């Protein structure tokens, strides 16, 4: 049986969540009434064992294992929960905060390592792109036309009267420098190492 020792264990997790830079100033997690409306519209809940309402409950009850729960990685970041929650709460935002906590702990890095190529592309070109490692399976799923598109994209853009989408050298330097100083570069390296 679980016992709650009032005052002895002050609830930390929810406070940490609210302190996070991603947390909106009016994030209403304390007001959650566990009505499940978020879950009722959640594609993640429909297709997987993820349950945003229960995730909120666990945060409110200071259940730190929620950070390690694989299910938090099933959120679609669609914010449908946010658009209906009658209590001003935002499960989507909380989910993203928990994922960052998991990444900070190290565990979560494994979950995102396959997306690292997006970061490389960003540093190189100043624009992101779907990580190249998914490319083969995409071509397989979508068809060879997708490969052609990738090969011909510059020509097509020219036909459409559009210029290059890659940033000029100097702009890329600015972006790279920002990402270096913001700590992103290190973060990316760390993530890549966790393979």
């Amino acid at each position, binding site marked *: 049986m679980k016992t709650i020792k009032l005052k002895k264990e002050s609830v930390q997790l929810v406070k940490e969540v609210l302190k996070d830079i991603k947390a909106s100033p009016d994030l*209403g997690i304390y*007001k959650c*009434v*566990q*009505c*499940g*409306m*978020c*879950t*009722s*519209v*959640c594609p993640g*809940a*429909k297709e997987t064992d993820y*349950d945003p*309402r*229960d995730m909120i409950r666990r945060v409110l009850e200071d259940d730190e294992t929620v950070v390690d729960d694989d299910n938090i990685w099933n959120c679609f970041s669609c914010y449908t929960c946010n*658009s*209906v*929650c*009658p*209590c*001003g709460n935002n499960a989507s935002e909380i989910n993203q905060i928990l994922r960052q906590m998991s990444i900070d702990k190290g565990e979560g890095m494994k979950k995102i390592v396959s997306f690292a190529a997006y970061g490389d592309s960003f540093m190189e070109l100043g624009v992101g792109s779907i990580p190249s490692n998914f490319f083969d399976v995409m071509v397989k799923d979508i068809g060879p036309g997708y490969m052609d598109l990738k090969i011909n994209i510059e020509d097509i853009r020219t036909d459409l009267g559009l210029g290059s989408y890659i940033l000029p050298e100097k702009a890329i330097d600015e972006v790279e420098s920002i990402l270096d100083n913001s700590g992103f570069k290190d973060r990316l390296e760390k993530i890549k190492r966790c393979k």
Partner: protein
Amino acid sequence: MNPDSSKDISNKDLKIGVFLCRCGGNISDTVDMEKLRSSVDAEVVEEFENLCSINGRKIIRDSIIQKNLDRVVVAACSPITHEKTFQKYINPLNPYLLEMANLREQCSWVNPDVETATEKAISLVNASIEKVKYAQPLDPILRKTTKSAAVIGGGISGISASLSLARQGIKTCLIEEQPTIGGAMVKVGKLFSPEKLAEECAMCLLNPLVNEAVEHKNIKIMTNTTLKAAERRSGNFHLLIESKPRKVIEEKCISCGKCAEVCPVEVKDSWNEDMTFRKAIYKPFAQAVPDVYTIDLENCKNCGKCQEVCRMNAIDLDMEGEVIPMTVGSVVIATGHKTFDMDKRPEYSYGRHDDIVTQMELARIMGVNGPTKGKLLKPSNNKIPERVVMVQCVGSRDEKPGGRKYCSKVCCMVAIKHANVIKQHYPDTDVIICYTDMRTPGMYEKYFKYAQSNGVRLIRGRPGEVAEKDGIFTVRLEDTLSKEPLEIEADLVVLSTAMEPSDGTINVSGLLDVGLTEELFVKEKHSKIKPVATEVDGVYVCGTAQGPKDITDSIVQANAAAAKISELINGGVELEPFVASIDQSKCTLCKKCIDICKYKAAYIQDGILTVDPISCTGCGACIWECENNAIEIMGQTDEQIIATIDGMLKDKKPDEKRIIAFLDSVGYVSADNIGINKITVPSSVRIIKIPSMNRIMPKHILHAFKMGADGIIMGEYPYNPMYSHTKEKIAGLKGELVKNNINPDRLAFYKVYIPYFRGLANKFKEFDGEIKCLDTP
């Protein structure tokens, strides 16, 4: 500000009697009475053991008569305790020619040191002497309220209020917008009775009340009418009531219905929640009161067919509307509610399918006088539904745009009622209520248990969507208790929609100048102790116009409103005359005072700015607004305030510190409590009672500093309607100090509360310390 010289002379000539009370040692043990006596400059100075006794009265009265006294100062206990007593004792003088110096609660009991206590006593007595010189004879305000009332809204609340008023002999006019009275209650069909665990017929309960209202000689029912304009004049209301032409002469119509038979225009019948049709000439329902037909102006084509068949010649298509003026003593707002606009929550698919209905629509369907004569049939195909799913809190308890943050209070009970009725008559129909919390306080819990034992199923979760496919609905939610996303199939979905303030509530409140809550319900003066009074004196509220509530609570509130009106009429309350008075020669009718007054006491009548003495609290906020110095507060004139300050600082010694504390009545009582509890207070503190901090102006503060005050405290109770202005003003006052090279830290503002007198005592101590620090270089 200096009183002008002519007044100075007359003031000097006034004969003032000062009566010092020893209070059985309570005062004289600490205050050196000899010294006090010798420092008082007055025509008569008398000292007595207990002035409040009958013997004290004789001493005071004899002196007044023998010495021809003009004014009296009693230096004794707190005015809170005995001012009324001494006001009587100074008869034959006008009671308002008395001032009291509070030597007990605010001097001897808080100042154990004889020397400083005596000094303080001297300055308190001096202040009273100075102030009383400016006292004017006043008459208490006698409140007389006309013995009549208007009740706006003819639902159960309005009917109940009217009946209670009428039974107490008060002429009452019941104003209803619709062609019939009865409101929402006639539509709901059945009422739940937690005691009997049964449903009762709403119409059967309402009808006797309606009949009594119709028969009662003191009630005039005016249907098809609305309030158009309202003006308040010292306790009375002049109303303009507009009546829409019914186009049927009430006295002639025998309600045979021939006209409706021939009328070619069919429109949706709002009495049946638009689920059936009626004609353009109609009577909302069989038992409608008044029992006559009405032409719906919006839809009538003026074809005259009805006129042809009416054998009573009751139809007058040329009938014109009327505007009727009336004057009443009080008004009751009983304008009810409306139901939530489902366009705001499109995910529930209401309006897209006939078989998604509101609880009110279900009530009509199950009402014996409804579209299906009481049978539970689906609107789309007239079949009995096998699976009914109810969705709670639709639009209620919802912070999202368009939602209502509050709980609508009745919908849990309504859902249970309907579920019970369905289960009793259609045991094979499954009923599921999807809820977040079932709110069934008090006895209703028994009815809830009854529903559970009837087999009504409950699923805890707030549905996110209602979808339809091939005529079958899917309610999507999470069963939060089993942590399972669910889809429930249903063939009738019932939405428990929120109660919202009706348009009538918002309009009528606007016309009567009554404040609304954030949610646009009528705001009570105080939700706990004045639940039926509004911000406007003489206007009361009851029923759902004030917030969601059930029929029982509406009736209770209606009776309370009637009782309050009866108090006003029969009580003939006497009020203190400390209200604003206007110097008409200075007033330019700029209306600034009208805008600022939250008590809505000031208004312009016949081109003259008038203050309703019954509403005015004498708070003084208007004085700040008036650029023409046209306003004075009786009993708290500038002269009186200045004189009090002067008196308190008159004999200040060079090395002494004196702090003036302006406290409102709450703060003053709190300060008395400090004394009653014998808590020591710095000897520097001198208290002046002021109706509201809004009364204190820069000139008063600056004068006090000029006369030698070292610091000023202002204390006010934060839950008064004018408090919001107070805060701004303190900042303004501080700014004035800076301009005049006075350290703004010498002015402190505190919130005061009666029970937190210890806190106030601490503030006094802290402030006294701070002032001392400021003065030590």
